[in-house]
């Protein structure tokens, strides 16, 4: 690890002043990803601004009947919060599908959004990587790319976003509250993360002088018909090959509204409004699910080793929609996929 200076801001304004004064500084909260990147010499901050003692650790009701989750709430505390378990079980399930309990105890809500890709070339400083060093090229295209993206890729980067929690937040239409030196703003979750395009070094639309203070959940939690289905190389403590978050609004035998988000397949949690619109008004049958999967994957493209992800995603979407429609969400402890 490179040497760095360590400071503890007294409040959010102090934290923002410190980050604005030093573009090579970084905020640190859980540190589960940043410290690892520093050990690998991928991140070399001159200063770590420890925000863990700032008052951003509460979960509160919002006036419209939703929840506001402070940026410093630990992933495990969020997953096990009784309000999340009762009203947003999709979010709790996705969190518990990710990482290990030790990491969930450490990792913060805000930091989960800002974690970097686990693309091995991004981590390996001896190889070209446009995300790590813009303009050097992408080693994954034409390289070992089994874990890589099949949707929304560019000729510059085919990395995936590694989070499970974010896939559920995307499906739930969460909003990200950010504070900068010029005030606060609320960012739709779908607009928070970026596709790689020609600037894969920039993961999110958060500005360098801003800090995430909270995530807001709208009232609708899809607590009755949901699932988070994660397919990975081992049964726990591994990143997704493909994951599917589903929330359905079912009345009688027809789907009134559908949310469908995928993880492990793109540079950001992947949603497709056309596939969701197709489900809306349809009956919850296998045929409808297959059609939605085909729509969502219509522009999917493999890069060799990850070609299998297209068929895997198709099957996972169909399976997950069935689990949600039946009201039998995937257990994160009993790993049998039903």
């Amino acid at each position, binding site marked *: *690890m*490179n*040497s*760095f*200076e*360590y*400071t*503890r*801001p*007294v409040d959010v304004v*102090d934290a923002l*002043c*410190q980050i604005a*004064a*030093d*573009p*090579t500084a970084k905020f*640190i909260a859980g*540190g*589960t990803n940043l*410290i*690892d990147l*520093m*050990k690998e010499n991928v991140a070399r901050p*001159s*200063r*770590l601004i*420890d925000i*863990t003692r700032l008052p951003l650790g509460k979960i509160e009701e919002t006036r419209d009947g939703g929840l506001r989750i402070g940026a410093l709430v630990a992933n*495990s505390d969020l997953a*096990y919060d009784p309000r999340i378990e009762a009203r947003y079980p999709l979010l709790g399930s996705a969190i518990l599908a990710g*990482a*290990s*309990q*030790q*990491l969930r*105890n*450490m990792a913060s809500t805000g930091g989960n959004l800002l974690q970097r890709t686990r693309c091995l070339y991004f981590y390996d400083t001896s190889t070209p990587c446009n995300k790590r060093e813009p303009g050097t090229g992408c080693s994954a295209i034409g390289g070992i790319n089994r874990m890589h993206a099949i949707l929304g890729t560019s000729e510059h980067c085919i990395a995936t976003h590694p989070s499970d929690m974010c896939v559920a937040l995307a499906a739930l239409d969460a909003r990200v509250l950010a504070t900068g030196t010029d005030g606060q703003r609320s960012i739709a979750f779908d607009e928070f993360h970026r596709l790689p395009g020609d600037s894969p070094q920039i993961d999110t639309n958060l500005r360098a002088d801003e800090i995430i203070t909270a995530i807001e959940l709208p009232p609708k939690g899809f607590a009755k018909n949901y699932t988070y289905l994660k397919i990975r190389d081992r*049964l*726990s*403590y591994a990143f997704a090959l493909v994951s599917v978050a589903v929330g359905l609004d079912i009345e009688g035998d027809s789907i009134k509204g559908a949310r469908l988000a995928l993880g492990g397949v793109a540079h950001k949690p992947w949603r497709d409004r056309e596939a969701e619109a197709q489900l809306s008004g349809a009956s919850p049958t296998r045929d409808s699910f297959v059609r939605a999967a085909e729509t969502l994957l219509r522009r999917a493209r493999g890069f060799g080793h990850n070609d299998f992800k297209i068929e895997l995603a198709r099957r996972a979407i169909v399976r997950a929609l069935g689990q949600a429609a039946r009201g039998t969400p995937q257990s*994160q*402890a*009993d790993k049998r996929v039903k």
Partner: protein
Amino acid sequence: MAQSSSAARKSSGRRPTPAKMTVTLHVNGIERRLVIAPWTTLLDALRLHLDLTGTKKGCDHGQCGACTVLVDGRRIYSCLTLAVMKDGAQVTTIEGLAQGSTLHPLQQAFIEHDALQCGYCTPGQICSAAGLIAEGKAGSADDIRELMSGNICRCGAYPNIVAAIEQVMFGKAPGEAKR
């Protein structure tokens, strides 16, 4: 106590090596003062500065669980934790679990169930299991397996590790916990 420097340094020019900092940790009930560089991990602080070598360095990247300790009662990876960030915290390591010459029930159960071969992952497994029990979220062997997945055992002692934890959690005697 770390200080927040109000006058942010300009990014131009060479930076002096940041000063060491004084950190207080309450390790296994004893107050310990350390003067360490900010990039010292909690794992290195325990092993190299406090000579508590029970906590193991496996991967050093948060992928194996050998470095698991309890901070303020919660299990975490000490290899991905900066010691300065835990200033004032209570830290429990494998050395702090026994009461005098009486082993912690998990230590005793690991012996009774032969829940180890080489033993390198064992301090992390036991600290993790202590955290698991304190969390109170595991009600079955499936839950134990899932919530212990952050601790890798390359000898493959998993069935006996789960049996040892079941014994402590559910009072199962050796032999009863077979699936």
